[in-house]
């Protein structure tokens, strides 16, 4: 084969591959890693004949920084409730008015008009979750419904506790543990927070994100964690329990927004509407293992999630849930200083 035939063959192959992928439209989703159900995406692609591309990010700060720079080519992003107001204020998102979309009627009333996006002008709920304490009950059988597991570790768990190094979550928990309010500027409270954290650290073995694997393998016997992660751990080992701290625990929600620079606005709107359908919302939950804010989705939820204590917050614990807020930059600054002090 001479180079001309080779080139022709390659050209044809290229042509074939692009024509195979041809669809009526495209949708570029920018979302957290390992968070988007391939089944639901396939269903969406088939229904509207749209080709979906997913790109991962690993933190709200990364996503925000990248979208701020512009020219990303993404249509959709999924920031947490703490960040949604920043995205709105900085004019990064498009007012798609999901509150008027067909499937909006399915959104649970308590999530239909949240403070972070009044009237749901921009965002659609993607997932809901909590931050609590996970304990391996083979090692520790005492009461675990307290941040004390992390900040005043019982003897059985000393040197076996992990803390997920999410600065805002950890400081939120510590503030609750010492009896303060989130985003407090009270120096007395913050001093207690710092002292509590510094005193607790020698009992920790690590500060890592990789809890599912490490709890499973037994490297950790307790950890602070997100509820969906805790569910996966319990399904692998029934002795692992998720607990809602009685001092107060953080509630979060990730939300689908359409970027102002989106090229496929109509497709993005279709997607926002699509995921508010109960069956699709349940499909998303089945993959990412977190709850959703769609009424009627429980019918379609997988059996192991329907009554899971990690997903459905028990009535007794519900009063202690508190939606986490974004603190003012100068407060964040104090947090960073405490955090540096903790990890130095």
């Amino acid at each position: 084969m001479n180079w001309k035939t080779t080139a022709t063959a390659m050209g044809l192959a290229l042509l074939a591959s692009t024509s195979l992928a041809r669809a009526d439209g495209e949708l570029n989703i920018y979302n957290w890693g390992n968070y988007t159900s391939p089944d639901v995406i396939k269903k969406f692609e088939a229904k509207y004949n749209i080709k979906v591309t997913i790109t991962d990010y690993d933190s709200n700060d990364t996503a925000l920084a990248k979208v701020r720079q512009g020219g990303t080519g993404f249509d959709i992003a999924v920031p947490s409730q703490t960040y949604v107001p920043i995205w709105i204020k900085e004019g990064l998102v498009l007012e798609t008015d999901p509150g008027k979309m067909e499937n909006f009627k399915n959104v649970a009333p308590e999530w239909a008009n949240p403070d972070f996006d009044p009237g749901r002008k921009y965002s659609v709920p993607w997932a809901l979750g909590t931050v609590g304490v996970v304990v391996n009950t083979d090692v520790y059988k005492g009461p675990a419904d307290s941040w004390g597991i992390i900040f005043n570790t019982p003897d059985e768990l000393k040197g076996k506790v992990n803390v997920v190094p999410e600065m805002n979550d950890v400081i939120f928990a510590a503030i609750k543990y010492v009896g303060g309010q989130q985003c407090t500027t009270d120096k007395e409270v913050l001093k207690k927070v710092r002292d509590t954290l510094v005193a607790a650290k020698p009992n920790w073995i690590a500060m890592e994100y990789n809890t599912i694997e490490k709890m499973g393998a037994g490297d950790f016997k307790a950890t602070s964690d997100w509820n969906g992660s805790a569910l996966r751990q319990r399904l692998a080992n029934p002795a692992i329990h998720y607990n809602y701290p009685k001092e107060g625990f953080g509630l979060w929600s990730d939300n689908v927004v359409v970027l102002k620079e989106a090229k496929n606005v109509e497709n993005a709107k279709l997607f926002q509407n699509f995921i508010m359908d109960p069956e699709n919302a349940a499909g998303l939950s089945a993959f990412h293992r977190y709850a959703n804010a769609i009424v009627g989705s429980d019918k379609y939820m997988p059996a192991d999630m329907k009554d899971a204590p990690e997903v459905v917050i028990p009535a007794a614990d519900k009063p202690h849930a508190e939606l986490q807020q974004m603190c003012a930059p100068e407060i964040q600054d104090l947090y960073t200083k405490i955090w540096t002090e903790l990890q130095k």
Partner: protein
Amino acid sequence: MATAEEVAKAAERRDIRDRWLLSAPALLVIFLAATGPLLIVLVYSFLTPGSYGDVKWQFSPEAWIAVFLERDIFDDTLSVAAAHVTIFLRSIKLSVVTTIATLVLGFPTAYFMATRSEKTRDLWLFLITIPFWTNLLIRTFAVLQIIRNEGIVNTILLKLGIISSPIQILYTDTAILIGMAYVYLPLMVLPIYASMEKLDFRLVEAGYDLYATRFKVLRKIIFPLVKPGVIAGSILVFIPALGAYVTPSVLGGGKNMMLSNLIELQFGQGRNWPLGSALSIAVMIIVMVALLAYVRNAGKSGVRHG
């Protein structure tokens, strides 16, 4: 009519001009790819942090002050940034220890390789480079699998009855050191081997002939001659070790920050890009000063040969 001298001068000028023109693309790439981004970092270090990340285009020396001094958040007193000093020292200590560990392991390895027959040498060289085919993260996770509580080492020791409960190696400083030494060993072995290969072993024989002990031969003959390799290897290990991110995080458990973690914090959750930039530049300056001092000292006491 031009004299021969003028013609020669014109030719020389043309030659110089051609050289500049020909190297212009390379210079441009170097400027854009290396100097450009560094200049941005430098400029950013003198700006004001934006709220929630990014920067405001407003001059401020605050970031540089914050590198060295900290205002206590509780009593507002200004003092040396103890947290930063602790983290700097931890990173420097880890790099020094890693360099020493790789040197202790790498020197005999290189010696062994250089003293094999021509043919087998290539095989050893090949074996040393094999780890480079794999991603750093994967190599680090492989070390994790070996040393973790349910890992290979502990399982074997437990099965043999040598220990009754697993030894906690993972998430200790030892774990970080094992990982770092493993990851950076080839960077030490290769330059030492390159020097060692050129070593004239007749000199070693001569040393023995003159009744030198083995230790004396090593100290007075081999070591001075392969010193350039040792210096190159130490530099190649020390610098990346100072900025190591993956290995300390994965094996150390992330409880104690390294320099790289501190810088990352400013660009991520800390949202203080100017401070992150200033810290990066500060690290570069420290590395440069340390290198100059090291190379100058090493050069001074070196034996001339050629």
